[in-house]
Each structure stands twice: as C-alpha cells, then as structure tokens.
C-alpha cells in the first residue's frame, strides 16, 4: 500500500465527513488491512458470540511523539488494551478501533500506524471487529488519537482479585522497569538528550495465559504498571488490600542505560511508565516456579521477585534501599518533571 494509489498526501476534513472520501479511505486502508468476517460485513457494528465471563477494557492513546524508538502509537493502542484485558485474567479476542485524526496528518504516517496495528493485533491473536474514523481541524488535536476497546473470555482457572491477597504473598515483576517512559522522554522536544533506549511495548497476553494454565488460582493479581509506574500501582494495591508492601531496591530490574538516563534527567524510575511488563502477586509456594516460567520466556527473562505483602505498615509501601535504609514509596502526583540540578 502506498500513498501514490490514493491521490492525496494528507488526511483532511473530508475524510471524516462520512461521504465518499471517508468511504474511499476506509475501503483502501482500513477494510483492506483488517479484513475479517466480522469487519467485512461493513455494518454499523459487529455481532460476536462469547460465552461465560467476559472481560472488557477500554483505553485511549494520545502519546506524543507518535513515532518513537521501539514502536509507535499503533503498537500502544493494541498492546495497551490487550494487556489490560489480560490483566483481568482473560484471553483477549476482539478489539474495537477508533481514530481521531488532526487534519494534515501525512497519509504515509496514517498507513504506517494502521499497518502496525494490524501486525500487533495479529501477534496478539486479536481481531479488529469495529471502528470509527473522525477528522478534526488543525490545532484541535495532536496528529492522531486512538481509542481501542478489548473483549476477552476469562480464563477458566483464573481467580484474579485483590481480596485474595494475603500477607506473605510474593510480588513478582516480569521485566526491567522504566523503558517506555524514558524512550518517549528521549524523543521529546527541548530535552537535548539522545539515547538508544527503546520502548518495551509488547503484548503480554500469552505470557499471562501460560501463567494461568500453570498456576491457576495461585495467581492472585496481575497489574501492568503503565502511567505512574511501579510506585503508583503498588501504592494503589496496598491501599486496596489494607496490608503493607515491602520491596527491595536491589531486586528491581533496571537496565543500565535507563538508570543512567533517569539519573541525568532527575527522574525516579519507579514513577516512569512501562508498556511491556506486569506485576503479579502470587502465593509464596509457587514463587520459584512462576519466576522460572517467566525467565524461560523471551518476554520475562529479567523477571524478579521484588518483595512481599506484609501485616506491618498496612496501606503503605516501604522500600529497603540499596544501602539498607528504608523509605516510603508514594504514588506519583501529577506529571514527573525534569529537575533543575
């Protein structure tokens, strides 16, 4: 597919009008790329058959820049929602896909994003079954926003609930932290900071499926620490369960280059966003087996047990520092901002 076939170089307001231009864009790009029996009916919506417990999750993606090292907004739009459904202990099957495009977006960029969405959806085993495309005037958006909603059947052995978490449970993280946020940071205008850090964006559903197949209800919780990072997710969990959380700083997997970038920019990696890792809280008796399963999967080679649930200090997350001190870990407030010195 190339923009030469289409006769226009940019998306403009007409492509969101609902008229012939919209039909042309949909036929040549959307329907051709995502063709499947549900979408091919070109109806107002899709009818699907799903039995049993269904998990649904929706998310909107507004990342800037839209292209970054390790992916683009299209990867995030699929992986983000696929992972959220997976975190419910479900197997994602279907996705809706809605674009809000700012007029003037180069058609080549749009095609690249659509193709990425197709590849990522195929990799995750999900079908795009309904969607929408709107175009807004220049200045009323920021290139492109995407919303996806995911649907998945809950795994028959899954019993994911914060209520099941007990003191002594182990907290395991599937991979190195802060990769995505630092990849985005290094591409932001005005930061004069270059790196080869790549976003960790990936689909985690098959890894979650393997864990549920193997350990079932011994897995008490899955969470993906996206915006707000590991600190915010752990703080939320501690608050929900009315128990304490203790983590070890030296067990947190952190890539050297990411760590150095955080140091330079004065950011705490615990607050930095992730897009390709999850935290799972498991019964202590399966800790080593869960770790072994994760570490044998290419998406979990650096998995680590970072701490445990405690009776002490309920609702608080305490971190044992590298040098043996203790400090509280609190949720992020507002946006993380670069420091003066």
């Amino acid at each position, binding site marked *: 597919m190339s923009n030469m076939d289409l006769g226009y170089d940019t998306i403009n307001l007409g492509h969101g009008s609902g008229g012939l231009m919209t039909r042309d864009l949909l036929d040549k790009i959307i329907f051709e790329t995502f063709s499947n029996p549900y979408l091919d009916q070109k109806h107002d919506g899709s009818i699907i058959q799903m039995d049993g417990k269904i998990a649904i999750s929706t998310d909107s993606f507004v990342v800037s820049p839209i292209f970054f090292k390790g992916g683009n907004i299209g990867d995030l739009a699929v992986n983000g929602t696929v992972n959220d459904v997976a975190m419910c202990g479900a197997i994602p099957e279907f996705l809706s896909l809605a674009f809000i495009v700012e007029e003037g977006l180069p058609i080549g960029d749009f095609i690249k994003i659509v193709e990425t969405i197709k590849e990522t959806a195929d990799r995750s085993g999900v079908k795009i079954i309904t969607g929408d495309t709107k175009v807004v005037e220049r200045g009323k958006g920021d290139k492109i926003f995407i919303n996806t909603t995911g649907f998945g059947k809950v795994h028959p052995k899954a019993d994911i609930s914060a209520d099941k978490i007990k003191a002594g449970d182990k907290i395991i993280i599937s991979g190195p932290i802060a990769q995505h946020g630092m990849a985005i940071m290094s591409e932001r205008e*005005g*930061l*004069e*900071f270059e790196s080869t850090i790549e976003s960790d964006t990936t689909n985690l559903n098959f890894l979650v499926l393997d864990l549920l197949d193997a350990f079932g209800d011994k897995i008490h919780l899955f969470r993906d620490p996206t915006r707000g990072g590991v600190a915010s997710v752990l703080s939320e969990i501690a608050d929900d369960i009315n128990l304490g959380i203790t983590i070890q700083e030296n067990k947190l997997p952190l890539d*050297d280059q990411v*760590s*150095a970038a955080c*140091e330079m*920019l*004065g950011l705490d990696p615990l607050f930095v966003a992730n897009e390709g890792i999850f935290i799972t809280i498991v019964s202590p008796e399966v800790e080593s087996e869960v770790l072994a399963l994760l570490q044998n999967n290419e998406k979990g080679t650096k998995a680590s047990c970072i701490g445990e649930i405690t009776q002490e*200090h309920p609702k*608080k997350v*305490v971190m*044992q*520092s*590298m*040098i*043996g*001190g*203790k*400090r*509280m870990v*609190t949720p992020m*407030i*507002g946006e993380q*901002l*670069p*420091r*003066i*010195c």
Partner: protein
Amino acid sequence: MKYLSEYRNLEATKRYLDLIEKTATKTWNIMEICGGQTHGLVKNGIINLLPENVRMIHGPGCPVCVTPLNLIDKAVELLENGIIVCSFGDMVRVPGSKKSLLEAKASGGDLRILYSPLEAVNIAKQNPNKEVVFFAVGFETTAPANALSVLHAQKEHVHNYSILVSHVLVPPAMEGILDDEFCTIDAFLGAGHVCAIMGLKEYYPLVEKYKIPIVVTGFEPLDLVQGIYMALVQLEKGEYKLENQYARVVREEGNLEAIHIIEKVFEIGDREWRGIGTIPMSGYVLKSEYRNFDAESKFGISSITTPENSDCIAGQILKGIKKPHECPQFGKACNPSNPLGAPMVSSEGACAAYYHFSNHLI
C-alpha cells in the same frame, strides 16, 4: 553506571555508619546545604540509619524553594501576555499568589519545559515574531548555562530573548543562617555541585569567622555518610576546617571557564529569598551591558510584589529551625497536590522529601 553504583555500595556505607556511631559521643547538628543532599539522605533512608545524636538539619539549597513568590507571579504575567516562557521542570508546579506556571499554561499560556537555556535561544530564533523568556533560577550551578544563553543570544543577534533572573548564592545564605539567633548548627555539609563551579575559596573565610567545620560533600549515599563522618571527626576533636569529600568532582579552584562566563554576564547584588527576605549581596543580577536581556525591565514587571502565605513556615524550614513534619500544615492543608509553599512541591524541597518518602512515619 559504575561510578554511581560504587557510591551506593551497602558494605562501604555500613562501614561509615559504624564509624559515625563510634565517633559521635555527644549530640551534633549538621546541616546539609543542598536540597539534592536532603533527598539523598531521605530517599536512601540514611536519616533513619544515623544514631539519634547525629541530627541532620536540612538547609536552604533548593533553588525552587528560595525563588520568591513575586517572581512566579511575574512569570505568570508574562505567560498571560502571550510571551513564550521557558522553565526548568521543577518551577512549573510551584504556586504563585494566583496560579502556578502549569495552571497558566492550562489557561492558554505558551510554557515550554526545558533542560537547557540554550534551547530557549533556539526557540527565540524559531519564533522571531514572539518574545521568549527563560526563567533563570538557581544557585551558582545553573548560572553558567544561563549566562551562556545570554552570550549566545547577543552573538547571534537574537533580540527577542531575555531572562527572568532569580539567581542566589550559597555563601551569603550560610552566613544568614549562622547569624540567626536561633541557629544551632555545629557543622555544614557543603553543596558539592555549587563548589564544582565556584571552587573552595569562598568557604575558608566562613570557617574562620564562625569557627565551624565545612565538608564539601557529594550526593550519593557513600558520599553523604563519609561527609557526615568527616564533619564528626572535626567536631569531636574540637577542630574547624574546610575539607573536600567530593574531590572526584570538586577542584580547589572550581571551574574557571564557568566562573569566567558568570562574571562576564552577572554581577553580585541584593536578592530576595523566599521565606527569608532580602539578603544583601546574595545573588546575581545582569550587568548593565546586558540589561536589554533582563525580562523584568524589558516588560515593565519589576513592580509586581506579593506577600507570602502566612501559614507557610518555609523560612524556618529553609533555615533549619523546624523540620517539615513539625509544621502544623504538613500533610494536611499543605501537600504536593495543594502546596502552600515551594518546599512541598519542588523535587529538592525538604517538605516534599518528607512527604514522599515519609521516613518519620516508618
């Protein structure tokens, strides 16, 4: 990362903590000057590992915290008048009397968060029909880059660039603290990065005049515990001298090139410190030949004055007279989402450190 991980070594840090415990025979109050050191102490949990008789008093070295309220109001005024304001990230959440820079941005102001003032000069070049102002706050550490931006703008004839200056200096602040009648400080950990720029020469007279040990110290856990130990050795022996724990970064003469650039653009003048008031000859102002880069006179905003919030005890916090959690507003009326004063919102502020890491609660 090796040069950093070495200074976060558990065994080496423990050795110094043991030495500190054995050395301190009575109660000593040691002030770390720099907000970065405060965060290092709190974030790594060092505060809780020190013996009770070694008390760390948190100093004024947080550039955001000491920037007076009226400067923030001035920056907000510029934003509301369609001027592009560029700032370091820390400043943007600090409340002004009506709003913070971030709130002014949400109401339509063109605020850019930058790491380098040189980038602001580029923004001015790219927007020749707009005025661009860099919010030049900080201690001696940020002064060279801010001065350099003025020199660049002058050389490249960028006339739509200026800086809103609020530069303060460490030695006059230390004198101010030592002259305070409530001062209980026995020794200082000097601010490592400030000394990396300025060298050590300004500190010898302070040691002599006040007969107080000063140990110029770094920011990593091992730096901090070693600096504390060196100060304690002096205190226990009844000595007072200037020592340099941070010799891997700080040279006796400082960074001569940086000092040269500062002296070319700035001269020393009176400066207002948030919560403390005006300290004579305590900061930098633009030299007369660079006054056309002074945003205050360029846009006629020097008359904006704003009284401080009377519920905020930032002045006592910055002078080390009170600890953050001793403030009745701490964590209640004042928290990072709704700060009464700058020390609660700045990443180097003592109140923010106590709030985020809440060590006094563990």
